[in-house]
C-alpha cells in the first residue's frame, strides 16, 4: 500500500487561485486506509475548505468500495458517468491520494482542468495494524534480501548500508535515532534465528542504482513482463497466466 498523509490546510489553500472552484476527490483504497482520503476525510476537507471561503463545488470518493483511484479505467468511467456534471462546473480537482492518484486524475480528465495534490505520499508500506504502517521496501528494482534473511537493509538501515552495520549502533539501536532499531541488528538477529549467520560474511556488490532511477515502467504483453528504466529493458521475464 502507498502511505499518504494530508498536507496542511494552509498549504492547500495556497495552491488555489482567487475564486477558483474546486472538487475534492478521495481514494477508497490506500488513502482511505491511511485516513488521508477516505469518505470521512474527503467530506471533512470539503467542509474545512468551504469554511475558509474556498468555493467547493462538491466532493466524492469513486467506488466500487475499496477501489484504488490509480486504477485508471475505473476512475475514467466514474468521471464520465457519475461525476460528469459536477466536474463540468469545477476549475480544478484537489486529490486526496498519493501522486499516482494525482496522475491518474490527469489521465482521466481532458487538459482543461487543474489538479492539486492534497497529500504527501510518504512510502510504500506494510499495513502492520490498522493504526501502524511501516516501510519495509523501497522499490529499488533489484531485490537483494535473500542474503539478509528477508529484511531489507535499504528500508531498515538509516544509511542503506549493504555490508553490515556502521560503527554507531548501540544496544541494537540506530545511531541516528536511539529510539529506532538498528536495521543491521534486526538482520543479525533474524539470520541467527534461522541459522544463516554465514550470509553476513558475503561481500555485497554496490547496487545497480539505474534500476532505482526515474522514470520506470512495467509492461505486460503476451507472455512477457518487462521492467524499463528510461529506454532500457532492465529485466524481462516470461509470465504464465
Amino acid at each position, binding site marked *: 500500500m502507498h502511505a499518504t498523509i494530508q498536507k496542511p490546510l494552509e498549504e492547500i489553500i495556497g495552491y488555489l487561485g482567487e475564486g477558483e472552484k474546486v472538487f475534492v476527490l478521495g481514494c477508497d483504497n490506500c488513502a482511505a486506509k491511511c485516513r488521508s482520503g477516505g469518505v470521512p476525510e474527503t467530506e471533512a476537507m470539503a467542509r474545512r475548505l468551504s469554511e475558509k471561503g474556498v468555493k467547493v463545488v462538491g466532493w466524492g470518493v469513486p467506488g466500487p468500495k475499496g477501489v484504488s483511484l490509480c486504477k485508471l479505467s475505473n476512475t475514467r468511467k466514474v468521471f464520465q458517468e457519475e461525476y460528469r456534471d459536477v466536474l463540468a462546473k469545477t476549475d480544478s480537482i484537489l486529490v486526496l491520494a498519493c501522486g499516482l492518484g494525482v496522475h491518474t486524475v490527469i489521465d482521466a480528465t481532458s487538459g482543461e482542468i487543474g489538479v492539486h495534490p492534497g497529500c504527501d505520499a510518504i512510502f510504500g508500506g506494510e499495513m502492520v495494524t490498522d493504526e501502524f504502517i511501516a516501510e519495509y521496501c523501497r522499490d529499488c528494482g533489484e531485490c537483494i534480501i535473500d542474503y539478509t534473511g528477508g529484511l531489507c537493509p535499504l528500508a531498515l538501515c538509516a544509511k542503506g548500508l549493504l555490508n*553490515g552495520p556502521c*560503527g554507531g549502533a548501540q544496544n541494537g539501536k540506530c545511531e*541516528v535515532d536511539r529510539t529506532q532499531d538498528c536495521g543491521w541488528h534486526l538482520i*543479525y538477529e533474524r539470520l541467527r534465528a534461522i541459522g544463516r549467520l554465514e550470509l553476513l560474511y558475503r*561481500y555485497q556488490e554496490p547496487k545497480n542504482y539505474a534500476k532505482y532511477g526515474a522514470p520506470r515502467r512495467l509492461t505486460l504483453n503476451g507472455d512477457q513482463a518487462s521492467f524499463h528504466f528510461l529506454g532500457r529493458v532492465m529485466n524481462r521475464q516470461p509470465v504464465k497466466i
Partner: protein
Amino acid sequence: MSRLEKALHSGVFVVTSEVGPPKGTDLQGCLQEAEVLRDRVIAINVTDLQSSVMRVGSLAVCARLVERGLEPVFQLTCRDRNRLAMQSDLLSAWTLGIKNVLCLTGDHPVLGDHPEAKAVFDLDSVQLLKTVSVLNHGRDLAGHELEGAPDFFAGAVVNPGADPLELQLIKMEKKIAAGAQFFQTQAVFEPEKFARFMEKVRAYRVPVLAGIVILKSAGMARYMNKNVAGIGVPEGLIKELEATPKNQIRQKSAEIAARLIRELKEICQGVHIMPLGWADLVPEILEMAGLLEMAGAAK
C-alpha cells in the same frame, strides 16, 4: 610507499593524530594544529565533514599538508558522494601527493548542520575499500583501464566496544578482504577490555591503532558514555577528572591520555590521538608516554 605504511611494516609503535578543517576559508588555525604535530606523529588524519557539519574538505587540507611536508591520511566518507565523485576524488588525491586514505561510512546528514541534505551512501565503507583496491590495480569500478594508477595505503575503522561484537568482527573481516591494510579504532578507555578485543583480531594480522580521545572534562566523559556507541569511560577516570581543579584540568587530561597510551603499548601496533582542539597537548602527552621522538615521524 607512504611513511605510515613503512612505519607500520617496520613494527615500531606508531602514533597518528588528526585535524579537522574549519567552517570557512581561514585555514590558519587548522594548519597550526597540524604544525604542532610535526615530528611528533607519523601521519595526520584530516576529517571529512566530521559530524556531518559543512566545512572545508579533507582533500584541500590534505593537499596543504603535503605541500608542507606533513603526511596526511585522507578521510573519505560515503555520505556525500556517489561512486563517480568518490573515484574522482581518490584519483585527485593521488595526483596531489596524498598516499593514505581512511575509508569510512560517515555520519548521517540528519545529525549535522544541514539535516535536510540528501544522504548519498551510494557505496558503503566495504565497497569503498574495494574501490580503492580496484583503482590501485589500474581499473575503475566499471572495469575501464586507468591512465596511471594510484597506489594508496588504505585503512578503515573498527569499534572494539560494539555490541554485539560478532557483527563488528564480521564487518572487520570484510573490510580486510576488501583491502583494508590498517585500522584506527573508536576511542579506547579500558585497556583490559581492549586487550581481549585484540586477542580476537590478532589472527587477522592487520595493524590496529587504538583511538585516544583527550578527555577534557568529567562532563564530556559522561556525555560520551551515554551517547557514543561502544565507549565506556570507567567511573574511576571520571572521578579523577571531577576531583581536579579547573586550572589543572589540561594537565590531568594529558596525564590520563599518556597513561592509556603507556598501557596500550604492549597491546596493539600504535595509537591514533583525537585531540578535538587540544592538539597543542599532544607533544606533552607523547613525552609523558615515553614517545617523544617518533621513529620516522612526519618531518
